[in-house]
């Protein structure tokens, strides 16, 4: 393996690491929303690890650009890595916001059950797993799965938000918890969108085509 290939492998392993940490944070956020409050110390520790790795990725990419002048698939990998790391860091932040906000939602279980939020949260957990998988496998089928999951999450999220707003209109006592839940749902939708962005960058890595403003349905994945 050349020195350059070792650097690329190092970058790849750091991305996998930060991806796994974000996956853990999302999984914890789902747990915090659906069942029990989460120990804040551990979450903070993971958040700080993610931030450090995000900076490390920038440093590795900067050094590769300056010293190796990458081209073709290597160039795309490094460009995508910088973007992916940025998206993962955002996923981590949103997961922390979900954990914090979930702690203070009183009587959330009735609303969660009524609007099938547990199912949606599980889908968000799944999309983060699939996103890491698509980076590892770099195959179009997994990229396609991420896009489909995102559509489902968006639909379910919007339906749940509509339902909660309706509930708040008729029962004023659920306004506080309903509002908090709407914010949490918006965070979960954003996590799903960041996952979709990552899948788009993986698509760019593999196919050299920028699709971030294209309709996914037209891609035949």
């Amino acid at each position, binding site marked *: 393996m050349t020195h*350059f290939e070792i650097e690329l492998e190092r970058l790849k392993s750091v991305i996998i690491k930060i991806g796994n940490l974000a996956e853990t944070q999302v999984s914890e956020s789902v747990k915090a929303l659906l069942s029990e409050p989460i120990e804040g110390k551990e979450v903070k520790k993971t958040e700080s690890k993610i931030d450090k790795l995000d900076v490390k990725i920038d440093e590795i990419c900067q050094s590769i650009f300056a010293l190796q*002048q990458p*081209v*073709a*698939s290597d160039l795309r990998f490094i460009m995508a890595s910088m973007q992916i790391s940025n998206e993962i860091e955002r996923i981590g932040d949103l997961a922390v916001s979900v954990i914090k906000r979930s702690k203070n939602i009183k009587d959330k279980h009735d609303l969660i059950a009524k609007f099938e939020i547990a199912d949606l949260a599980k889908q968000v957990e799944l999309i983060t797993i699939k996103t890491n998988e698509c980076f590892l496998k770099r195959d179009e089928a997994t990229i396609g799965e991420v896009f489909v999951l995102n559509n489902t999450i968006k639909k379910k999220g919007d339906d749940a938000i509509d339902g909660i707003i309706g509930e708040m209109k008729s029962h004023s006592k659920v306004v506080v918890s309903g509002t908090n839940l709407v914010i949490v749902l918006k965070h979960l939708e954003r996590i799903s969108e960041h996952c979709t962005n990552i899948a788009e960058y993986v698509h760019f890595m593999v196919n050299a085509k920028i699709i971030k403003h294209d309709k996914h349905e037209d891609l035949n994945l």
Partner: protein
Amino acid sequence: MKNIKIEVKDLSLYYGEKKALKEISLEIPRNKVTALIGPSGCGKSTFLRCINRMNDLIPDVKITGQMLVEGIDIYDKNVDVVNIRKKIGMVFQKSNPFPKSIYENIAYGPKINGIKAKNELDEIVETSLRQAAIWDEVKDRLGDSAMGLSGGQQQRLCIARTLAVSPDIILMDEPASALDPISTSKIEELVHELKEQYTIIIVTHNMQQAARTSDYTAFFYLGELIEIGKTNAIFTKPEQKQTEDYITGRFG
């Protein structure tokens, strides 16, 4: 219709029994820079020398196929080699000024071509040196020996000497490989400016130089043309795996 300056059809070259170029077919567009890249011995310099029949000087060389410049096959029996080389100038890796004054280096070619009037020669010398971006550095010492110039200046002088006989095409065989980064950058900038008026073909081992200076890039390997395309496409998404492996340094 594409604006093609040179069209190569099934060109093969043999050194005795050895086939050094294998059925090369490609088109070189007018007023663009085309870079030829590939590992040592891949045939890129041999191919470059085919364009102005420099290989004619090597014994046992046999060439088949066609090299059409402006539609005329330069290997046709009726074609005058001297005329071809007037129209197709060449700059080599090692700068090779004549051991004469700066002025004489530039005026030499036009004089051989029959230009005698001093004012006409003066004008050619100034224009050529200006075009080669060296006029300001030498205008006050045109009578000095060209051998006293730095390596980078000598190479630009050689480019000026090539321009003085009004060629259409300029062939460059690793023109900056022996130069420091500042001189290299001046040559690259010059190539960029010269393409307005000339069709340029450049052989380089420096991948970044090919990427920076050329509009089209052709990748040669073991005497074959593997791929030719827009430089932007070659360096972002080449069609062939061999090209990708070569430009990303994973060859062999």
